[in-house]
């Protein structure tokens, strides 16, 4: 079997905050196969963005390993490192900050082509930029070449970011909240464009979002991972995770989301948390970090023992209760 494209092996990342250390990402294990979509969901501060940044190599890991096609990225050098760096690209959330406001769209997309010698002549560059704009459905491309980012709408800017990421023919894309700043009515077309590209180019995508409904839609054939306070608490095929969540935290999240249907949303049964307080990363609860809030709390074991991610009912779940049921 070929190596997964990205493997996270006991990855932990700590930050120093006021002379203390916090674990933003704690012992995460995950492999992503070629052509697979994984959505990471969770509330702010759960470590999903930090995980994305470590995969792209922007942040080093504190302990553990990240493997790119079986090789530890911290040990890569020279040509191997460059191959990894080009192979894994990132699309950022804030489309107003991620494009240089003083460059035209043409310059923004042409720069990486020239820098990485993807094109040999100016004529070739021009042709390639046009092609790339067409792949992200910005047609006719000539309408956009000489525009500056501020002349484009949010959705168009995000398309430019995608086109820029594609200049170096990556095989893996980390998209961090890539559609959350885009208008509701055009989110779906952006996601559809990305799925189309994924299929056409065999890309793997790590899609980071806080919107579970969006995650289900985008990762339809892929998987969703739910993070809570730095740990991966559930990982399962997308539709299964939404329809049959195993971890109490996933269940609580799903029950809390309002639905765009007055009848459904007003009758929705909500699971009450034991406590509304969100624990600080500086003082993480012992044992399972969710235990002070967990509606399914079963006693001492939750307070003392950190649950490992285990196979259960076709998902991987980190919860003592799920293990006990087995």
């Amino acid at each position, binding site marked *: 079997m070929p190596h997964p494209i990205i493997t996270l092996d006991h990855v932990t990342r700590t930050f120093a905050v006021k002379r203390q250390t916090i674990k933003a990402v704690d012992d995460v294990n995950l492999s992503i196969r070629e052509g697979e979509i994984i959505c990471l969901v969770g509330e702010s501060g759960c470590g999903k963005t930090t995980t994305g940044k470590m995969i792209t190599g922007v942040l080093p890991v504190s302990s553990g390993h990240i493997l790119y096609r079986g090789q530890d990225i911290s040990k890569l050098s020279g040509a191997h490192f460059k191959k990894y760096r080009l192979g894994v690209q990132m699309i950022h959330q804030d489309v107003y900050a991620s494009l240089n406001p003083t460059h035209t769209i043409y310059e923004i997309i042409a720069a990486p082509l020239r820098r990485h010698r993807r094109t040999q002549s100016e004529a070739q560059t021009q042709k390639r930029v046009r092609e790339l704009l067409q792949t992200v459905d910005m047609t006719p491309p000539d309408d956009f070449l000489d525009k500056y980012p501020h002349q484009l709408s949010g959705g168009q800017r995000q398309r430019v970011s995608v086109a820029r990421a594609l200049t170096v023919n990556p095989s893996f894309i980390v998209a961090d909240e890539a559609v959350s700043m885009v208008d509701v*009515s055009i989110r779906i*077309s952006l996601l559809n464009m990305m799925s189309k590209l994924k299929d056409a180019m065999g890309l793997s995508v790590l899609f980071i979002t806080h919107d579970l409904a969006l995650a289900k839609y985008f990762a339809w054939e892929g998987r969703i991972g739910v993070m809570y306070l730095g740990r991966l608490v559930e990982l399962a095929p997308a539709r299964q995770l939404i329809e049959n969540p195993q971890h109490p935290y996933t269940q609580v999240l799903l029950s809390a989301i*309002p639905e765009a249907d007055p009848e459904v949303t007003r009758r929705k049964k909500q699971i009450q948390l034991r406590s509304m307080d969100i624990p600080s990363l500086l003082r993480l609860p012992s044992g399972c970090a969710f235990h002070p809030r967990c509606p399914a709390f079963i006693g001492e074991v939750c307070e003392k023992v950190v649950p490992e991610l285990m196979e259960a009912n076709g998902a991987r779940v980190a919860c003592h209760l799920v293990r006990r049921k087995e």
Partner: protein
Amino acid sequence: MQPTLSVQNLSIEYKARRGRVQAIRNVSFAVNKGEALALIGESGSGKTTLGLGILQLLPGTARITDGKALYRRNGQAIDTLKLKGKTLREFRWKECAMVFQSALNALNPVLRIADQFADTSRAHGYLQGRALEERARHLLSLVRLDPDRVWKSFPHELSGGMRQRVLIALGLLLEPQLLILDEPTTALDILTQRNIMDVLKELRQKLDFSLIFISHDLALAAELTDRVATVYAGKIVEIADVEATFKEPVHPYTIGLINAVPTLKGSKEDLTSIPGSPPDLIELPTGCKFHPRCPLADVRCRGQEPELEDVQAGHQVACWNWGNARQSLERFRA
């Protein structure tokens, strides 16, 4: 019964270097006593401007070019857009309060929560001392905060959700008849959002105030409000009871918006995006402002802008083709 607020033919524009931004164009709607009305639309559709306009909180570049906003209390009606000086100050907060989008910046960072309440109360000649503290603590517990924990805290000591709830309590301090909430849960986590929604639902049951709920999130409107107005390019294009809005929408934009939002239950095939992007409010398209994105647009749509007309009692729409919009759009998707 007379509505608490009736906005009539309101138009608001902003001055910009390129020209006039027509943020609100000839908008009329009413909010009844105890009713919650949602204003739904994408960013830049003018929904926040509408809220600010009612309270005359618009920035200097904005100008109200036409219209009235009649506010009624005890049988008397006043046009809030004509208020000035002292009477305007009295209207704000005492009659109509607004809770802003950025809860993180809306509180004074150097004042304890107790002082934020005292400040507001003093400025409006409301309760003082012990009586104020009692009222404020009561409101804080209504929004599910622990008054002892919060009362002496500074804003930075509270989480985003807690600050948002303090703001809601503060908004209700002077017993306003009308509360305007502008995206009260954006930038908050799912569970915090759930908590705020529950608080709002509870408050509506316990206190009798009217609510204007500004949001881009259809699901929140579905859960909280009684009526929904869909705003597109500065105009209300459809207004109906919440059930009708979600079950029998007739404006292609409302239908498109509902179909464009992924739901937990929905299947992948149910979703369709609206083509194109929202219009430039300086150079608006001719005719119906939605026509460049509308699959049903015809010659009339391009030439003439439709006004709101009755679909049935309580349900109005501004579309030439509303009669067969749903069936035709269904065919388009098939």
